[in-house]
């Protein structure tokens, strides 16, 4: 940003052409295949629009929203989504942070270790769902086998983690936590490397304890990274519908349905685009409010140029 004015003046006509042609392909593609479909989907929210019966398409005003807010299937996604995002985020963040502190000092094999714990990130939510369906399988899954071996579960009566109303949602959250921890570990660990060691040494001379150092040096120093990574993760967790899709498909009885998986369900299985777009619009508004409030509350602008 420095010497902004000077550089603006320095771009010759040739430079400006160069800038234009280098940027144009990317901007054009993203405008055409991200923004255009996205924006052109908004009017669908106010239409009856089903891919199964296009001839019945017509404007119906707020009808889709009225239907949504009167049906139990949608209403129960609201508390589910809140739990899904916050419980997952808090657990991922806390465990991830703890592991990052363990990895702060260099040791042999640290790079490999980080490579290994990052495995899940190479895999889509859909495949993670398939992997964990096996783990949770009542009759032939290893988790039940482990619990039986430990004497915690009666072999005659294994737990159907994903089919039981009480355990399905916690199991889905556990899988999500399993997936997300490494992101925090790796980003926070990288940020910790940037904290100057002199700060710790100086405070040690002053007789500061570990806890004091953690809250007065470590956390303030890496705050921008903490704020941004938690915000991004909260949005991604909110959008992590493909895990639900393959793990439980929202079941049993809608207990694991979150807002985004509900929308996906409307598109893929019911072809009800009108209603799905209404959910989509609600999602966008919620994400906008959430991001703004989060950045305001954390007073992010004062520290970074987002």
């Amino acid at each position, binding site marked *: 940003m420095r010497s902004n004015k000077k*550089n*603006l003046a320095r*771009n010759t006509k040739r*430079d400006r052409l160069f*800038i234009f042609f*280098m*940027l144009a*392909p990317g*901007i054009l*593609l*993203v405008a055409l*295949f*991200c923004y255009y*479909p*996205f924006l052109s*989907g908004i009017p669908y929210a106010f239409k009856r629009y089903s891919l199964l019966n296009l001839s019945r398409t017509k404007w119906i005003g707020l009808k889709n929203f009225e239907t949504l807010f009167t049906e139990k299937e949608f209403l129960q996604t609201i508390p589910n989504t809140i739990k899904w995002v916050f419980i997952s985020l808090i657990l991922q963040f806390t465990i991830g942070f*703890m592991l990052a502190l*363990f990895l702060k000092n260099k040791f042999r094999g640290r790079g490999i*270790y*980080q490579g*290994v*714990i*990052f*495995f899940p*990130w*190479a*895999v*889509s939510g*859909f*495949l993670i769902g398939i*992997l964990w369906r*096996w*783990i949770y399988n009542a*009759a*032939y*899954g*290893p988790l039940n*086998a482990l619990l039986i071996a430990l004497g915690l579960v009666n072999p005659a009566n294994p737990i159907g983690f994903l089919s039981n109303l009480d355990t399905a949602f916690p199991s889905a959250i556990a899988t999500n936590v399993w997936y997300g*921890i490494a*992101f925090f570990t*790796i*980003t926070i660990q*990288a940020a910790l490397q940037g904290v100057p*060691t002199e700060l*710790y*040494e100086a405070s*040690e001379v002053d007789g500061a304890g570990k806890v004091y150092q953690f809250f007065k040096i470590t956390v303030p120093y890496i705050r*921008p*990274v903490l704020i941004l990574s938690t915000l991004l993760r909260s949005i991604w967790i909110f959008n992590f*519908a493909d895990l639900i899709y*393959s793990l439980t498909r929202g079941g049993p009885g809608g207990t694991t349905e979150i807002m985004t998986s509900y*929308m*996906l369900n409307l*598109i893929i299985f019911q072809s009800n*685009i009108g209603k799905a*777009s209404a959910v*989509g619009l609600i999602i966008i508004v919620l994400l906008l409010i959430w*991001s703004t409030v989060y950045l305001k509350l954390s007073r992010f602008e004062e520290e*970074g*140029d987002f």
Partner: protein
Amino acid sequence: MKKPSLIYRIIKVVILAGFAVVIVFPFYWIIITSLKETKEIFSVPISFFPRKFSLQNYRDLFQMLDFGRYILNSILVSIVAASGASVVSLCGGYVLARFNFRGKQIVIYFYLITQMLPSFIGLAPLYQMLSWAGMIDKLPSLMLLNATWLIPYSTITIRGYLMRVPRALEESAMIDGCNRIHALVRIVFPLILAGFSATFRFCFVQAWNDLFSPIMYMNRQINYTIPVALNYMVQKNDIRWGELSAGAVIAVVPTVIMFAFAQKYVAAGLIAGAVKE
């Protein structure tokens, strides 16, 4: 600094090791399941190591479905999408790293905002666009869409790598008569090769994992990609776990290998552009 106490170090090692086991175990489980015979998969007590190794599930998978074709489709789509996205993003990222111009911040926001939108919101309107253009059921649609979706992420990360290369290097080359593109390809590009390759691998993995656009836009089985084939197997009432596990292993292993040592770049890249340099 004082050495941490022995007890602290033991706790630390135990927790780190335990966590690694928990992370790796589901992968281990799917691999050994794919190598078990069907009757061993469904026998109690379950075995944590195959009593007898068998490739039967893989053989069945290729017989039951045209799986070789799906692998080929997946490879084609992912390579074309990742290459397209990387090259377009190298151009855009370079300009965003090296020039100041009006609207630059807008371009950056334009890209950052896409990272927050749930990708499937545009699925239905895209269906209309593609069918209007006669592009339904054609693999190039998947290449084009995946490339486009990866451009924002790649542009922002490649810009980050380029910003760390001192301007002076290419400026001196340009004084010696090199033109800008030449300087970019010859001087700058080799310096960001590690980061560029991580970005390429990230793009490849994302395109490889794409499930919903092929589900929506590919109808004929001949155009299926690996995730669609697996989805087809999962949606059936009677899931054939042996073959499904074999398919999942084929889907997972290449991406895990491509990603394994890019972890630092990927995680840093995911929040790049938003944190002050």
